[in-house]
């Protein structure tokens, strides 16, 4: 597998403080890579090194096959970067803003008008084309900024906290946009401390803490690695039914144990810890329903990132 972003033992020292401490990162081409970690873990520093804004103290990093230290301009041509906090020029119109950055990427003037129209359409800002940038809402500015990162058709987008500070609706819009961009073949490397964002759209995640990578891989790998078994939650009407369910399933191969847990909203629940594939889950369902218990709910609890995150990080915020 080819990695479009790769770092080897990357380090950044500020005085005695190690902001990034031997980070090794591998981002496959075409993936949506969620870079997760608590505040102060070194996410932004890593991204600044990948975007050639900060020089690493030691170690190496490559983006799209170019070393960030030896070929910074080649790297810049391959990336679109959106920093955590960024300013927009307040005395410009929306189209002028994009026109300026397109010109900075040496895009000839004759191609720019069409490019700007396409970009505005992509981020759904066509109707604000002639408005001043500072009249846009924060979510719109974020989308405009995303359009800016796409001006030179880069292979990789490096987005630092793209959804931070947005209202829920704007956050969903950004998320959808990222998925759409991934479909266009772009690799998206973004950081977040909002785990829900990451788990919903990412194909890969990396968890960083104290400047070190604690875990990384595809979502499936991460789930398998961190959560060795699946959890099935069965909701029934009363406690007797619950006991019965626990009894029924405990014999099935792959079931580690089934416990009746405290009722929620007046309904009894059974949690089944299970190792097995989807056929196994279906089999469990069949056993219960043929056992004559009225089931109100049968759901597999997707072990969310929150749980993974809590399990891996030790809560050391450096």
């Amino acid at each position: 597998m080819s990695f479009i972003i790769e770092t080897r033992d990357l380090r950044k020292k500020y005085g005695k403080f190690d902001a990034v401490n031997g980070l090794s990162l591998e981002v496959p081409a075409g993936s949506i890579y969620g870079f997760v970690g608590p505040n102060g873990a070194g996410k932004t520093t890593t991204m600044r090194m990948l975007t050639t804004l900060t020089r690493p103290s030691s170690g190496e990093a490559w983006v799209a096959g170019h070393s960030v230290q030896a070929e910074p301009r080649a790297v810049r041509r391959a990336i679109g970067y959106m920093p955590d906090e960024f300013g927009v020029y307040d005395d410009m119109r929306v189209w002028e803003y994009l026109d300026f950055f397109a010109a900075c990427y040496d895009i000839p003037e004759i191609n720019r008008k069409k490019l700007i129209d396409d970009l505005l359409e992509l981020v759904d800002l066509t109707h604000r084309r002639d408005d001043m940038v500072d009249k846009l809402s924060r979510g719109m500015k974020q989308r405009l900024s995303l359009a800016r990162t796409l001006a030179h058709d880069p292979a990789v987008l490096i987005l630092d906290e793209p959804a931070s500070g947005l209202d829920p609706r704007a956050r969903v819009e950004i998320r959808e946009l990222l998925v759409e961009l991934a479909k266009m073949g772009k690799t998206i490397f973004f950081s977040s401390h909002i785990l829900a964002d990451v788990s919903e759209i990412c194909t890969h995640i990396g968890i960083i803490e104290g400047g070190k990578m604690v875990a990384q891989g595809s979502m499936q790998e991460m789930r398998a690695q961190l959560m060795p078994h699946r959890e099935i939650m069965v909701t029934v009407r009363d406690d007797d039914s619950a006991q019965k369910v626990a009894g029924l399933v405990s014999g099935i191969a792959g079931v580690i144990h089934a416990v009746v847990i405290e009722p929620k909203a007046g309904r009894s629940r059974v949690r089944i810890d299970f190792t097995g594939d989807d056929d196994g889950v279906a089999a469990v369902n069949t056993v219960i329903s043929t056992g004559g218990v009225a089931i109100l709910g049968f759901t597999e609890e997707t072990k969310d990132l929150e749980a993974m995150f809590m399990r891996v990080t030790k809560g050391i915020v450096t």
Partner: protein
Amino acid sequence: MSAEASLPSAAGIEEAVSPREARLERAALILRRGAVANGILSGVVLLLAILGGIGLVPGLFGSLRPLLWAQAGGGDDAAVAAVILLTQVNLSLLLVMMVGIQARETWALAGVWLLAAANGAALALLGFTPALLTLVFALWAGLTISRDVRAFRMNPVMLKELRGRMRGMRAFVVLTVYLGLMSGFTVLLYLTVAATSRTLGSAAGEVGRLLFSGVVGIELMLIVFIAPAFTAGAITGERERLTYDLLKTTLLPSPSFVIGKLESALGYVLLLLLAAIPLQSIAFLFGGVTETELLLSFVILTVTAIALGAVGIFFSAIMERTLSASIRSYMVTLAATFGVPLVLSVVLGILSSAIRTKPAVLEAAFVYLNDLLTSMNPIATAINTQQLLINRQVIGFWTDTLVSTGATIPRVSPWITFTIIYLVAATVLVVLSVQRMRKSEG
């Protein structure tokens, strides 16, 4: 740190991501070499001239002259002095074109060929041998980028800045207020002069000259204050607005950024200067002022604006905040243009009067040092240039007679030396700002 030195960005040459960029960088390097070659030539001739002037090598000027500029008019020493200055003019123009090419400015593309043509003409028509140097380097650079005409374009930073600056009412209100104040000042000046000189008819030329000098003086003061203010926020402002990182991750070459900021600031200053030309021209009604003076005053004003704008840019590049960049710019501007020349000329004056009987060499040295100090200050330059023009009808070179021995020495109108010093300083500051921008933080 040693690893950093080998990096392309630290070496002063931008990493090229396309063959076109590589050619542009090569052309810039060629022009830099041309500038260095001119500098060496100029230095060597200057050294020889000093040796010849002191009298260590008799007949040196006579033997240098056929080698350097056989067809020049005037004395041997004047020809040598002209060679020193003209090679320095070439040096400064080559440096300007170097930065221009790095920034992909259209004017640089034309400038390189014009420079080659001018030097070709100087060589062919005037027999100015040192022109060969610049001709070769400019032609070489011009041919290197002959296929890359499309790389040269309107500077995006300049376009962005001017769009912002000229939008809305502000720019026009400022211009109107400025013209109103200037007009008021001119009227006031006229009334004062008219009141003091009773016979207006005979002294009309005097009045015209005074009005002209007054307007130019005010404009000069204005530029000293406005030019650094316009550029001191160029880079710090982007940092403060958190837009600097966005720009740094684009492919915009650092020279483009610096030149673009400088151009947009100068564009506005130039607008103010042009708008005031009708006011200066009122002087024509009274007479006593020629087009030459108008033109020279415009050159001095523009060169001052360029150099002080470059000072602002430089401090903007090395400081974190706009405020501290502005303060440093003003301090350095005042020290370099007023403080140091003033102190030195006072020291020089005291020394000059202390040594009663000076040998000719010493007197000549004092004269040249004084000229140099004059050329460091735009106001002194403007006054002296005008004096020379009025009293001796001199625009460029002239011959002065020493008091001590009656020997003659070649001298030059200060606006020429001033232009060279200020343009070279501006280019050096721009190059330093660019290098500072290229350095990654931390």
